[in-house]
């Protein structure tokens, strides 16, 4: 009996032992000292820049057409979901999972797709934008591979409307993070595939084209570099990436436009082309940096 009692007493003690936790006061003091006087950012400007960034989902199509096989290991495992607790991480990874979802959809990997959907839904809830994901509808669509098109459509639409909504709500920072996350993941996938398919010019050029988008992202992030530590550090990484992209040159070759008659209708044809010069070394550099950025986001 006595032994039993002692065991219980011990159990109570251990059960009650709690972790060390910084106290509320200390936190509030820290807030006072670092009274953030972040410069007011013009939402209009941000929104107009955001419009320029294409949906990263489109990249997946390119990947499939390149003939590369579905590689599950390239994606961010939905198991990592629980480690995303801050809005910053949640928004970035929501973007990443969005791209991954698109990737699985293109390859018709429904099983994995559902996992990403769940993760996306969960992150969206965490960011208070859960209303854009009717998990029931999505789940129903996902159960039938024939519905893939509509599923993709819905998801893409959702991302678009989320962006719109966030910008509307004065939470463009999240929107930027969301898009950046998606973009990083897309680039990461492309680089990986491209490095395996050295001959696929289209892929290489696609990577090169990202230079323009990266510039936009850097611009957007720079708006927040004073008010948000996290975004500032991301900006730093992106600037490093920009350094790698700087070696890639995009030249715009202007040619006179010509007019043709197609089916009895006069059409003006743009004959200008852009020439993108990307070396394998450039790809490798970009890949290295993008992987390190992604690892920071994902891990």
């Amino acid at each position: 009996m006595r032994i039993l009692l002692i065991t219980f007493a011990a159990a109570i003690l251990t059960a009650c032992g709690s972790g060390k936790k910084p106290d509320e006061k200390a936190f509030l003091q820290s807030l006072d000292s670092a009274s953030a006087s972040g410069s007011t950012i013009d939402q209009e400007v941000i929104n107009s820049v955001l419009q320029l960034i294409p949906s990263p989902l489109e990249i997946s199509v390119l990947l499939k057409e390149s003939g590369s096989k579905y590689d599950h290991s390239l994606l961010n495992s939905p198991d990592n979901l629980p480690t995303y607790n801050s809005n910053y991480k949640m928004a970035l990874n929501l973007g990443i999972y969005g791209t991954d979802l698109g990737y699985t959809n293109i390859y018709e990997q429904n099983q994995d797709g559902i996992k990403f959907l769940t993760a996306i839904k969960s992150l969206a809830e965490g960011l208070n934008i859960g209303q854009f994901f009717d998990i029931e509808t999505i789940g129903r669509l996902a159960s039938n591979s024939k519905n893939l098109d509509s599923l993709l459509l819905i998801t893409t639409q959702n991302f678009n409307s989320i962006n719109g909504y966030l910008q509307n709500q004065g939470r463009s920072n999240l929107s930027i993070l969301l898009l950046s996350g998606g973009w990083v993941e897309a680039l990461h996938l492309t680089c990986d595939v491209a490095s395996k398919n050295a001959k696929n010019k289209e892929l290489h050029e696609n990577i090169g084209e990202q230079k323009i988008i990266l510039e936009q992202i850097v611009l957007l992030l720079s708006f927040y570099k004073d008010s948000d530590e996290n975004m500032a550090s991301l900006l730093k990484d992106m600037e490093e990436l920009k350094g790698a992209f700087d070696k890639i040159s995009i030249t715009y070759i202007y040619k006179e436009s010509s007019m043709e008659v197609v089916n009895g209708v006069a059409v003006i044809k743009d004959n200008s082309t852009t020439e993108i010069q990307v070396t394998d070394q450039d790809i490798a550099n970009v890949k290295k940096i993008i992987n390190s950025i992604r690892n920071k986001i994902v891990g």
Partner: protein
Amino acid sequence: MSEEILKALTQLFAIITKQDGGVTENERQFVINFFQSELDRDSIKEYLELYDNYSGYSKQGTAEEEDKNKVTSVKDSIKTLGICKKINKTLTQKQKVIVLIKILELVNSDKNFTPQRLEIINTVSTVFNIIKDTFKFIETFVISERIEELNYPDILIADTATVKSADLQKHAHAHIEGSLVFMRVRSVDMYFTKYLGDQSNSLNGFTMQPNRVYLFSHGGTIKTQEGDALYYSDLVRDFNEEIQTTKLSFNANIEEFIFPNGTIGLRDVIVSEGPGKLIGIMGASGAGKTTLLLTLAGLEKPSRGTILINGFNIHTEKSKIRGVIGFVSQDDLLIEELTVYQNLYYNAKLCFANFTEEQLHQRVMNVLENLGLEQRKDLRVGNVLDKKISGGQRKRLNIALELIREPAILFLDEPTSGLSSRDSENVIDLLKELSLKGKLIFVVIHQPSSDIYKMFDKMIIMDTGGFPSYYGNPSRAVTYFKKATHHVDSNRGQCETCGNVNPEQIFNIIEAKVVDEYGQQTNKRKITPSQWHEMYSKQFKVNRVEDVKELPAVALFIPTKLKQIAIFTQRDFLAKFSDKQYMFINLLEAPLLALILAFITKYKSAPGGKEYIFRFNENIPAFMLMSIIVALFMGLTVSAEEIIRDRKILKRESFLNLSWNSYLLSKLNILFLLSAIQTLMFVIVGNLILEIHGMTFPFWLVLFTTSCFANVLGLNISSAFNSAVTVYVLIPLLLIPQMILSGLLFSFEKLNNLISTKGKVPIVADMMASRWAYEAMATYQFKNNEYESSYFEYEKGESQADFNAAYMADELQKRNRFVLENYETKNDSIQKLVSRNLNILYGVLIEEPFKSGLEKINLKEALTLEKYSKETGLLLAAYVEQYRDHYQKIYNHNVSLTEKRMAFDEKHGFKVNVEKNRYHNESLSDLVKNVNTKGRLIEYDGELIQQVNPIFQEPNPDGLMDYRTAFFLPEKNLVGLRISTFIFNILVIWIMSLTFYIALYFEWLRKMVNSFGKVNIPKGN
């Protein structure tokens, strides 16, 4: 008698008889007779030789020897001393008195009282510590052959004479030649008898020799040659003065007793008695014996009639006659788990608060000795299946429980049923003795033996249908019935040769059946009960005993209520603790259930399924519900039988007027203690296995509260129903609604429309302890865990601001737009819609703290169909945009605070993710945030109701007393105060428990159940 003592006695005998002239033939013969009564044939010879040796019987006669004897007499005196001292060490005072009497008789056998002999006898009595006066008295009794010489108050003469032969003597009348002399030795409370006469009477079946002294012990009977029986108890009564001093009157006049089903149980029964009577109640089965007994004892109320004790009405003046009545029912009213001693001890403790422990012990031991139970005092009583003491002992213990407090009137229902004839006789003899001490005793008796039958002072014979058919002297009953039916030998009541009465005869006569022409008995009785009753009414006139207008003397001293609680608790605790199985199961049940439950619900929950992480265990919400159900179940089962089991004991103790409240509180003491231990073990085991950290105390508090509630509920049903089976059948009926309406299994939003209210927990569910307990546990775990407690306030701000900015703003805008478009319509149904929307708008805005831009208009007026204008509409539209902006800012502020807090925590070594894994549970979080709801904002009953994130909402009471909210709100309104749901809900459950306790105290449920029971189902006739 041991060999040693016998040898000592033999020596003593020898020494005395050899003095002054040596042993005579008579004396030797006496010794032989004595040996014969003590020894078998072979040993007699041996001891006789020893005796002869010491007394020098064979060498008797020579002068030489005589001289020598004179010399040795001094030596003998010393020897005597030695022997007496030896005897002193082994014999009790009672036995020593017997030895002394034997010696006196021995000497008396030849009347050879020489000085030397007397001197030795004197020495013996001194060494035996017998007081001189007593010795003289005994000596006179033994020697004297003339009754006139025996002028002592402790002498009783039974003979045919009508007057006393000496002043101080007592006298009894008996049909006997010569006289029987009885002596009472007060110091040892023993009775001796001797017969002076020539008849051959028998004592306990043995012939009494004239002038021989016999011990007249308990249950002894002397039958005279003429057929008279003198009972030990009769004798004791004659010696006793107590009866004369006891003031007691018992007058019952039961005109009618009607059973709840309408049949008549008793009619016209008049009983009138004084103190010191043993009254038997006999009758065929179903004649109403027990009903009569219960009615007389005041346990049943006669439909018409009164029962007065010393002039006090037994029903209306209960407090006056408290403790006067004792009732021994046919059932065992013992606490099976306690020992014989403990049963009596606690009973005594409840009766005599004024006694010290020592006195209590003495009292208990006295009663045990009186009833011959002292050897069994440390045995557990046990039950019928697990027998520890015999049936007779149980019966005696039952009687002892009543006797210990010495009630003036004692009622016993068939105290001899199931007992051997020996035990039966002992029991009745005991009762007889009590009656002789002045008690009035009523006994229902079935098929008594002749001896027992004759021991009663009076006999009440009941006939079928509750008719009394005889009330009077038992022996005369036979003659009465014989006479009534014109039997030939109607004058002879008892057997001529043996003096036995056959009580069976009475019933043979009463129930004699008519014989038909074939000689077969028919079912028809020769004389019906009512005819007997008619005869009875003519023959018997009950003389009413004068009411003693005096409070009956009662030794009762009931402890204070607080003390009663302590005694009850101690007794109950001891009973429970000694029941090893009960303790074992009850203490093991909780940890075992926790083990099973936690073990089964623990799985590799981490994403990827590699390990167990509390955060991802989806079973936690279900586990919490189950632990509440377990607490309820344990609480119910442990208490459900409590009162039923005690009911018999309560019935017995009802005569003591003990505090019902004290009894109940003592029950709660023990049950709450048990609940506390059980729930603590449950929580510890469960939380340890499932790695629920930091919740031991809060979970325990909730479960303990719930279990206590179940305890009180269980006691209620236990008090209301009569059988344990009914109660256990009821348990699911009580538990399943608790499960259904706990809030987890079925969402409160999706219940039958009759009971559900959107946005508030249904009232039916509010009556369930489980729902309060669950809410308390869930909100506390979510809100107060180590992890969430840092962020809760920010998340709350975030959630509410987001809701307003994202949903409420849209909703307001939408409704305003609708109104703006349609306020001028003439269409009735649209008008209705417009005013409904206006109402909703008004309802929201009036509560809204943010009013920038609205200050200038009177909302109440502006938002009506009549006053609404385009300007108002536009103003509102602009306002809503501001409103949205305002909340967006608040939202963003809170978000950034959360972010900063997390960054800050991380910086200070608080690993957010690790802590979250440890303390936060995703499933529970989803549950309290109600994430799966479809409509985040719905319109219900003219109000906009937020469906999502109840855990971050605040109560919005309509009044001081409005406690109702949606499920999982973190705070509640308590008369204007805002307190945490955890505390509020625990309070609610305690209030529920208190209510049930009040119900229990007043036995509302029992009364309700009884009133259902009284509904008569009409019988088709």
